[in-house]
């Protein structure tokens, strides 16, 4: 169709786009060429067609059509190492005009994404701080950790359950294992299971994700073994329910109403079902300890539960419960990183506001 367009032609008097450039997109895994152009000065343009031809080909292929305000396109269908040439066809209601072709360009993959240098440096500093304080903790230095009400209550809640002869319900969130909140919830589950093993309290762990279910079962089993009570572990403690959000909520609500657990743990990632779980739990008179990093669900837990671990407290919880010095060291590293970020924000704000230094551009 565009056979005749290898030359710049102007039909019915509309001006074509000009200055078409093509170059490999930096910092990527290859296969992408960035095409840019200067838009046609004419009013009546509807949009632009981007044309491409490979080295040796005569015909131009149409890649796409973009709107009239657009002056760039990423061709993601380029083959690494093949040279391509691009042209842009300005289209109006009745006419079309093609630009001069661009210079030849080829795409290639890069070994380092320089746009992520800031993130890399930040991560390295963070890793250094965590490792540094972990070594300090290993060398026997005492580390201070502030009291977290919700976690102090765990021991007491377990005692209460044992006294009343009622079970403990542990919900490890509704997300998959890829969610760090789920992993944090499983870490806490390990600590809670060690304690239920010690006290001989029944434990109920319903699951929504099949992978989380298999991991949770291993966690509980190992915890019972390390507490010296492998005989007390019953594989039916940890079970899979369904992956349907509200069906899961209905099932857990049913367990709360039927089994009347003395304590409900709601840890990990939650969505709209958070209040449905927490409020049903509250109505059965259970002590409820919740923890999530889902900011939208925090208000529901705070209103309906006795204790709520907010955001990072969820991550700190397993260290707190296990009193493992190495884990406390990591928390200290985390706090120093936070201090560092706070300091940078304050200094950056002052510099930007008073001296007009464009701090944001550095990142």
């Amino acid at each position, binding site marked *: 169709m565009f056979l005749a367009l290898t030359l710049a032609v102007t039909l019915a008097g509309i001006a074509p786009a000009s200055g078409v450039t093509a170059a490999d997109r930096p910092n990527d895994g290859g296969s992408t060429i960035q095409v840019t152009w200067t838009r046609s000065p004419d009013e009546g343009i*509807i*949009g632009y067609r981007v044309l491409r031809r490979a080295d040796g080909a005569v015909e131009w292929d149409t890649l*796409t*059509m*973009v*709107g*009239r*305000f*657009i002056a760039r396109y990423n061709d993601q269908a380029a083959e690494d190492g093949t040279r391509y040439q691009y042209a842009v066809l300005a*289209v109006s*209601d009745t006419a079309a005009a093609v630009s001069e072709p661009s210079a030849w360009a080829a795409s290639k993959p890069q070994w380092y994404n320089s746009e992520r240098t800031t993130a890399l440096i930040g991560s390295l500093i963070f890793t250094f701080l965590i490792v540094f304080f972990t070594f300090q903790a290993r060398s026997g230095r005492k580390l201070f950790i502030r009291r977290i009400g919700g976690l102090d209550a765990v021991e007491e809640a377990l005692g209460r359950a044992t006294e009343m002869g009622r079970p403990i319900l542990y919900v490890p969130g509704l997300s998959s294992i890829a969610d760090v909140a789920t992993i944090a919830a499983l870490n806490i589950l390990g600590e809670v299971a060690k304690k239920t093993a010690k006290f001989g309290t029944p434990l109920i762990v319903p699951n929504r994700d099949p992978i989380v279910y298999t991991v949770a079962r291993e966690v509980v089993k190992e915890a019972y073994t390390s507490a010296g009570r492998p005989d007390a572990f019953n594989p039916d403690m940890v079970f899979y329910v369904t992956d349907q959000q509200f069906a899961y909520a209905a099932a857990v609500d049913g367990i709360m109403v039927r089994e009347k657990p003395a304590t409900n743990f709601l840890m990990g990632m939650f969505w709209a079902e958070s209040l449905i779980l927490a409020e049903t739990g509250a*109505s059965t008179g259970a002590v409820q300890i919740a923890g999530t990093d889902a900011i939208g669900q925090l208000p529901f837990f705070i209103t309906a539960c006795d204790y709520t671990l907010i955001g990072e407290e969820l991550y700190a919880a397993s260290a707190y419960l296990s009193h493992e010095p190495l884990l406390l060291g990591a928390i200290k590293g985390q706090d120093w990183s936070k201090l560092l970020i706070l300091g940078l924000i304050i200094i950056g704000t002052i510099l930007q506001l008073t001296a007009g230094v464009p701090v944001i551009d550095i990142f």
Partner: protein
Amino acid sequence: MKFWDKLLAIDRRWIYVVIWLVVMIPLLVPFGIKPEAMPPVKMMFAYIDTMPEDKALVISVDYTPDTEPELHPMYISLLRHAFATKRKVGVLCVSSVMSLGLAESGLRQVLEEFNSRAETPEDSIVYGRDCVNWGWSTPFITILLGLGERVTNVFPVDYFGNRTDTLPIMAGLKNYDDMGIVVSIAGSSVPLSWVNYAHTQFGVHMGCGITAVSAADFYPYLNSGQFTGMLAGMKGAAEYEQLTAEKMAALGLDWDLQRKGTEAMSSQTAAHIAIMVFILIGNFAFFITRRRKQ
């Protein structure tokens, strides 16, 4: 004194009964509450009301039956506003096929409202001349970009199987240039894609109708002018209904049509007030019992 203690530890089922009643009763017997339009709704209304007569209102029905109660009243009101002010209307679906039924039933309802009251042929709204339902097509991005070139290329046939290039309305509705505004009504983030492809690339004015819970995500785009107006949740629907009803009354079309958004607002208002009263009672009882203990 025992009364206050009892009140503090009231069986929550009483609360459930009250909430059920304050939601149900106003749904059955709405009380007259007059919504006052907020700026995002007013902006949308004013734009459609004053856009050139040859420009069309295009509505992208991108919601599905699960968000129908909140979003369908917006669609109905927009259609009424356009037909009352003699604007051409194009309707399409770009996200889910499930939206098709809603798009069709809404259009049929409003056509019926106008045509059953029409006295002259000029008063009636004729399908194919004054409005068109292009139906559904995919893939999404191709449609959004293709509409910038020629509507009839993207939708060769309409919802009923008519060839679009034979419909009289299409002569003056070639591409985005002929659309005064495109309003995307959705329970998802589809309106943002409309901004990315239709507004940013072709400069067409965009409006959106969205659920109340997702409104916070859309405000930045409203503030930046990428959306010309925004209807958020039941409240936004009720406000648009109010503006449309006022406009229709001014044009002599005082028909007293059903306004589902406004009716549901009674229920929503009653529920909000009930919860606030509960909180007040709870605090009152709390203070009295605390004082007594001291």
